[in-house]
């Protein structure tokens, strides 16, 4: 297993967002984590990537326990994270966003003082940019454009492309389909399948459970910060409870999340 999350808990003050969660992702595998608003999906990804500390438990990247390390270190070690809301550098160009994606691959101060294009002259990084442009030809056409001027779908592609620039060992994606037209979602999911074929380990968080279970190999269902179901995608799709709660039904955005109830009591 490339990524192994071992009994991890995350809390904000007294509020428990993730409770004793264990899951794993292997290379060449898309694993999906589905759950309602406030179930703790983002909190879990944030703690895996080092943005917020885990209260308890361990996270293994390969053999190495990476729990407690800061995000910028984990980026170097091979954890790639495409956040909810994408987090692109909107006033920088598309190309600059991509070159910063490879930031963790520079070595030492000398490179830092170099020109960006000089940095890009490194063969491996130049090849990586071409690889990303191969995946998303639209980014190549817009490489000098400010990232903020891209459409929502293109920004999502840029966020994924930037993440790929570091050649991560595992990719965490938080609701990449959010707010995108169905055909763009299809394009992005198609890309994830291609990355899987190339051996990437992918942890895909989605609210649209039907769509993500269709492309995933395995899945976990998280409720109130706990894993309540897990199994192969075909198993989960046919589970009555999963069907009832997550498939074929439109979410009501106004229901109270369990974590909030816990906080109020």
């Amino acid at each position, binding site marked *: 297993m490339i990524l192994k999350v071992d009994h991890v808990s995350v809390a904000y003050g007294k509020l428990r967002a993730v409770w004793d969660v264990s899951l794993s992702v292997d290379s060449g595998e898309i694993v999906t984590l589905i759950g309602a608003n406030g179930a703790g999906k983002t909190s879990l990804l944030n703690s895996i990537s080092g943005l917020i500390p885990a209260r308890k438990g361990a996270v293994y990247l390969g053999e190495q326990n990476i729990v407690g390390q800061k995000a910028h270190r984990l*980026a170097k070690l091979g954890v790639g994270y495409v*956040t909810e809301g994408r*987090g692109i*550098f909107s006033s920088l160009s598309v190309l600059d966003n991509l070159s910063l994606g490879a930031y963790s691959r520079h070595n030492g101060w000398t490179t830092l003082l170099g020109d960006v294009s000089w940095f890009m002259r490194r063969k491996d990084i130049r090849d990586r940019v071409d690889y990303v442009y191969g995946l998303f030809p639209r980014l190549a056409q817009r490489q000098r454009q400010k990232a903020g001027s891209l459409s929502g779908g293109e920004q999502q592609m840029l966020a994924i492309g930037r993440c790929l620039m570091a050649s991560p060992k595992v990719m965490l994606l938080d609701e990449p389909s959010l707010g995108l037209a169905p055909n763009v979602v299809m394009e992005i999911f198609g890309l994830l399948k291609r990355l899987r074929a190339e051996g990437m380990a992918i942890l895909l968080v989605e609210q649209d459970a039907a769509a993500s279970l269709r492309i995933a190999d395995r899945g976990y269902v998280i409720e109130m910060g706990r894993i309540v179901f897990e199994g192969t995608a075909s198993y989960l799709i046919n589970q009555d409870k999963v069907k009832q709660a997550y498939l074929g039904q439109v979410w009501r955005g106004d229901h109270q999340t369990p974590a909030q109830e816990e906080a109020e009591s």
Partner: protein
Amino acid sequence: MGAIYAVVGLGFTIIYTVTGVINFAQGEFVMLGGMVSFSLITALGLPLPLAFVLTVVLVTLVGVALNLLTIRPARQASNISLIIITIGAALFIRAIAGLGWGKNAQPVPPFTGSETIGFLGAYVRIQSLWVIGITVLLVLLVYLLLNRTLVGKSLKAAAINSRAASLVGIDARTMSLVSFALAASTGAIAGMVIAPISFASYDMGVMLGLKGFVAAAMGGFTGIWGVLLGGMGLGLAESLAAGYVSSAYKDAIAMVFLFAVLLINSRNLAGEEKR
């Protein structure tokens, strides 16, 4: 003078955009630039170019130390407390300087000759030309650093979205350190070029820091061009006031500008927490 305000304001802007902190010790970097170069030239008798480089290095080290000793350990604190820490650091540096160099203003020899030359019908001091030349060069260098180098791009990235920056491997603490180093070195240069005109004294940082702050605030703490316009505007307003009213009102202009800027900007300056 406007050029100097712009350069001092540049230091404020760089640190503010990268860390969200207004560094009130910026004026002290300027003072240290003036005082250290005074000592190196007058007391040690070093040649000017060497003194110039040494001063930049020494003051940059002070900036780095300030970041490591005060900002980094308190990283968890709110931006407001960090700002107060920089005010404390400024007082500390000023007090040490007052003890070490005494409280008298020291004359610093100009870079080349003290005479004035005729220029477009007016008489200007040669040192003023140095001020303008060096500040233009400095601003150009900072512009190139921020916009053309990887470290500049990563400073910008950290300023735009520090979370996303950390996810591509940019360490926010390193960026904070770099921004302090950059602000300290530009401040030191401003202090060195202005000292022959204004004299060097332990408290020269107060007024220059304040005016630099006004320049930065007039530029909205946004970027190089804003602070340049702010500094030039302030310098122009000051000389107009000195020429048409009375030179006694020169400093009052900065206060009026400060007041206006704070009134307009108070909400987004104090209220804006770092994302």
